[in-house]
């Protein structure tokens, strides 16, 4: 693999077109290209802000630029660059005019093999240090979806798919009737935390499979009014005051919102995006409580965001928060395809910079109440301050940890539990990563012993998270730093975890100290292997089983039905009717339940159309004598959603079934559907398309409430005790084990 050259001669300025503005198209940014309606071509205004223009009229205009493509290597995807040093080598890139150019007589053409174009001129980027700039160009595509991106990195030698920072260009809405569209990236800061741009790349996505050609024309780099966002110390609470409306606060310092949330759409595009999500949140969503929130809260708030936002942080961050506040765990806004450290959302709980994973704890020896305590810790974290199991989080940026979480987490989570009482477990899992991204300082208490942790018998540990994390982001991480670990709300495993997860959720089993069977599983993504393991657990009708589902991420209704068939018989009836919306205008209609509820009993030839149109499904206990019907079951919950809502809800009321956990499950009772990406370079979100009613029969179910928003409450509320954590005892397992032995 060849490596890119560090420097390129900039000669393209010499190729600026001769300009004469005929008509100026109104644009919110500085004067970019204007359109001459008589000629049907673009003109590049030549003013003092123009730093570079490439009109692609001659092969010489490309000298100083480079060609390149994304290459998949063993460890990384990098951009392979070949400088254009000879006009002859660029001649074949130029089109022959007509419709194949939008400025002048020629444009540049790239096919799948040709990759794309790169501008990597340190001298040019040096001109915008401390200032702001934008890059614009016009593209037409006949197959691939080319991306415009500006890449910031410390080393220009190798451009990675995961650079220090990267901002992707978007369409402005200015297009021509024959398929040319203006793309712009900016205003951008000339440097991001002292790191300069190393390249402007125009090429198909590294993940694109499309063949065909794309054309580009009228490339401009312009200085834009305004100064760089200063890397001032900030918090999420003071971001507007300290960083300004256009800034974001991440890793304890201000940064342009463009490097976190991406480009701010135009006002017209913002209105479209907001209206599409209003459509989803009020006319598509199946969750009845969420739909009401959609009408009463989401709709006006989203329209206000579209009107008033001055940055992508305010608009996209605001919309992400609004979607989360619909309070449907299946409904998510999606995320920008930002593969840098500046990705704005908390995705995947890890020990991160603190080198610690948090769990929900009862502060039994520290004043009482619920809090966040360390469940796992690494020896040498990036923060430089090793934590221990049992350390108690006492403040984040000077505030009560849960208060801070309640304010900050909805902004950056991928989705929130339906039932706010269920926030503790999921937020604990996200917390270390969330702190690393969005807090400046934290304080933890280390108890003197498992029996002494009042104010006089604890050590306070203050950690300057912002300094640690910004150092890690901008510099290097010491080689002896402990690797990060994934977080879990299991204080301890109840069965030995072996092997890696495959296509199905693994099911691990062990025998407990009192002879009980212990089953550790995360969810219901279950096929043949999952089912056979569950069957093996119950086929001999064991007396006592502990089902450890404390990290229950959901799965398939088919698997829920299968386990129900092992554990609850038809003589102890229970079932669920799952229904979609009645129409785009209303979730419910008088005909809905009567017309479609029977679908929960099975789809027949006669009913199949009705079932499908009403999005109706469900399950009812229908096995005469399940093998595990008499098994005493202790069911352990903490971070549970979706199929992990359904299963304990369907088993509730069964004799010898008892749920243990610190709080309810999420309460997401319905199937989930995918949504397309909300905007350029965004991954799609998701939406719950049903809601559910439970009952022992249809009559009872018809009179039941819609269940989404109501998590399954534990029969025994039990939380990991801080005192137990300090000595390594799993409180929930201990209490559940005792219950299994109690009768």
């Amino acid at each position, binding site marked *: 693999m060849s490596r890119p050259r560090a420097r390129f001669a900039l000669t393209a300025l010499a190729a600026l077109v001769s300009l004469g503005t005929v008509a100026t198209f109104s644009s919110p940014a500085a004067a970019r290209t204007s359109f001459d309606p008589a000629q049907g071509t673009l003109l590049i205004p030549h003013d003092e802000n123009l730093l570079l223009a490439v009109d692609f009229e001659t092969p010489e205009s490309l000298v100083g630029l480079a060609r390149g493509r994304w290459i998949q290597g063993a460890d990384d995807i990098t951009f392979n660059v070949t400088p254009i040093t000879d006009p002859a080598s660029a001649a074949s890139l130029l089109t022959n005019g007509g419709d194949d150019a939008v400025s002048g007589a020629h444009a540049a053409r790239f096919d799948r093999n040709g990759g794309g174009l790169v501008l990597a001129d340190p001298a040019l980027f040096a001109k915008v240090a401390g200032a702001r700039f934008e890059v614009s160009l016009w593209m037409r595509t006949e197959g691939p979806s080319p991306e415009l991106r500006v890449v910031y990195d410390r080393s220009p030698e190798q451009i990675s798919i995961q650079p220090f920072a990267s901002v992707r260009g978007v369409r402005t809405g200015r297009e*021509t009737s024959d398929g040319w569209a203006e793309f712009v990236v900016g205003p951008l800061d000339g440097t991001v935390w002292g790191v300069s741009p190393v390249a402007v790349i125009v090429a198909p996505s590294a993940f694109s499979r499309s063949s065909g050609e794309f054309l580009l024309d009228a490339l401009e780099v312009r200085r834009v009014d305004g100064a760089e966002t200063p890397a001032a110390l900030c918090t999420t609470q003071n971001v507007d005051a300290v960083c300004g409306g256009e800034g974001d606060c991440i890793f304890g310092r201000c940064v342009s919102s463009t490097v976190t949330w991406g480009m701010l759409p135009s006002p017209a595009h913002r209105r479209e995006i907001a209206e599409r999500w209003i459509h989803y949140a009020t006319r598509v969503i199946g969750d009845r409580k969420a739909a009401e929130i959609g009408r009463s809260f989401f709709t006006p708030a989203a329209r206000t965001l579209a009107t008033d936002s001055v940055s992508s942080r305010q608009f996209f961050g605001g919309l992400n928060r609004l979607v989360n506040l619909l309070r449907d765990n299946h409904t998510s806004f999606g995320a920008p395809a930002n593969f840098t450290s500046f990705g704005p959302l908390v995705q995947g709980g890890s020990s991160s910079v603190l080198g610690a994973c948090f769990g929900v704890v009862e502060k039994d020896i520290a004043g009482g109440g619920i809090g966040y305590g360390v469940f796992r810790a690494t020896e040498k974290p990036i923060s430089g301050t090793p934590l221990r199991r049992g350390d108690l989080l006492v403040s984040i940026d000077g505030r009560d940890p849960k208060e801070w979480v309640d304010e900050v987490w909805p902004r950056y989570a*991928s989705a929130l539990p339906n039932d706010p009482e269920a926030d503790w477990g999921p937020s604990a899992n996200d917390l270390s990563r969330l702190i690393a991204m969005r807090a400046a300082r934290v304080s933890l208490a280390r108890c003197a012993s498992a029996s002494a942790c009042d104010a006089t018998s604890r050590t306070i540990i203050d950690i300057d998270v912002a300094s640690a*994390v910004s150092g890690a982001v901008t510099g290097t991480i010491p080689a002896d730093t402990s690797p990060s670990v994934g977080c879990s709300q299991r204080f301890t495993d109840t069965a030995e975890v072996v092997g890696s997860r495959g296509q199905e959720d693994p099911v691990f089993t062990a025998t407990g100290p009192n002879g009980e069977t212990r089953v550790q599983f995360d969810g219901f993504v279950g096929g043949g292997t999952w089912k056979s393991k569950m069957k093996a657990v119950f086929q001999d009708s064991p007396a006592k089983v502990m089902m450890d589902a404390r990290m229950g991420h959901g799965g398939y209704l088919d698997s829920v039905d299968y386990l129900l068939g092992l554990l609850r018989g038809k003589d102890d009836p229970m079932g669920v009717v799952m229904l979609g919306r009645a129409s785009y*205008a209303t979730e419910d209609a008088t005909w809905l339940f009567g017309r479609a509820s029977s679908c929960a009993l099975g789809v027949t030839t006669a009913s199949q159309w009705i079932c499908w149109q009403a999005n109706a499904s469900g399950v009812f206990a229908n096995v005469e004598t399940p093998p595990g019907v008499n098994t005493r079951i202790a069911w352990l919950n903490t971070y549970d959603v979706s199929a992990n809502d359904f299963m304990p809800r369907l088993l509730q009321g069964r004799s010898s079934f008892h749920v243990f956990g610190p709080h309810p499950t999420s309460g997401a009772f319905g199937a989930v559907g995918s949504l397309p990406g909300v905007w350029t370079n965004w991954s799609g979100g998701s939406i719950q398309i049903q809601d559910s009613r439970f009952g022992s029969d249809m009559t009872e179910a018809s009179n039941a409430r819609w269940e989404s928003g109501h998590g399954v409450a534990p029969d025994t509320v039990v939380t990991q005790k801080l005192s137990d954590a300090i000595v390594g005892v799993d409180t929930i397992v201990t209490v559940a084990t005792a219950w299994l032995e109690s009768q």
Partner: protein
Amino acid sequence: MDRTVNHTLHNGTSSTMPLRRRTSSLLAMACVTLLAACSNGNEANDARPAQPNGPSPIPSATTRTLVDRGTYSTSPTNLLLDPGFSFGAGEGGAGAFLAFYEANFASYEFDTTIDSRSPAGFGSAVANIKPANATDTSSRAVLMLSSFLGGEGPFTVRIWASKSDAAGNPVDLVTGEDGITVSVAEDDPTGAAYELQPVPSASRVSGGRTWTLLELRLPKALPYGGFFLVRTGRGGGQHLVAAPEVLADPLVAALGTRSLEAPNATLVPRAVTSAERSAIVRYRSLPPRLVAPRAPHRPSKLD
């Protein structure tokens, strides 16, 4: 004003269809003439005519104009959830477009591409239905479909279509049994289907390819929802479709940016075919997913 004309398609074949044309608004005509050049405020779709039942002639690409396009290729209130065909065949589920070979209902995975010259522009992908082993004159019939939520309506249903030969070169679009048929089916197997009809005045030529707008005004309620069905016949070649749209007038009106007129269309219902019924059966047989969403994530050095 509604009238029926004998419409000659590009390939010289003829069909009889209702043609709806509104002639009262010169302003609307002017805007439509410029396609999307007339900004329509909150409306997203520059590809479609500015009024649901009044398409007017659109110039070919020889007269390049500057237009102000939305970010999406269809309205934000589109009842179809995936008008950009972004869900892969494996995604399935609510709102996804799925496709089957009509003869045996084997799953068919269509290609998608971004062609900014198409009516979808950069806003969404174009779906390319190219049955395996298709020749210029022979192909296996494919049924592609999605479902949508119903309501009181009335509805306007649209899609843009174009055709290529087996090698991908543009050829004239053929509608009907051997060509393309786009329909909306009611919720009931004994209910009716309604076919979209070409709007010849709205044809669009770009890059040597003619795109034909197919449209249906449905002045009736679909209380239990409906299916949007695209069938490509046995006449060979491959079909491109873009920017499918099912709009309910009240939702469009709520955006406050588009004038609406009471529908006055002549509906010609037909029975749902057995093939359509079978495709719908398979479409809805996908198991419900009960998994909390997780966005794509590449671990960074802070993970």
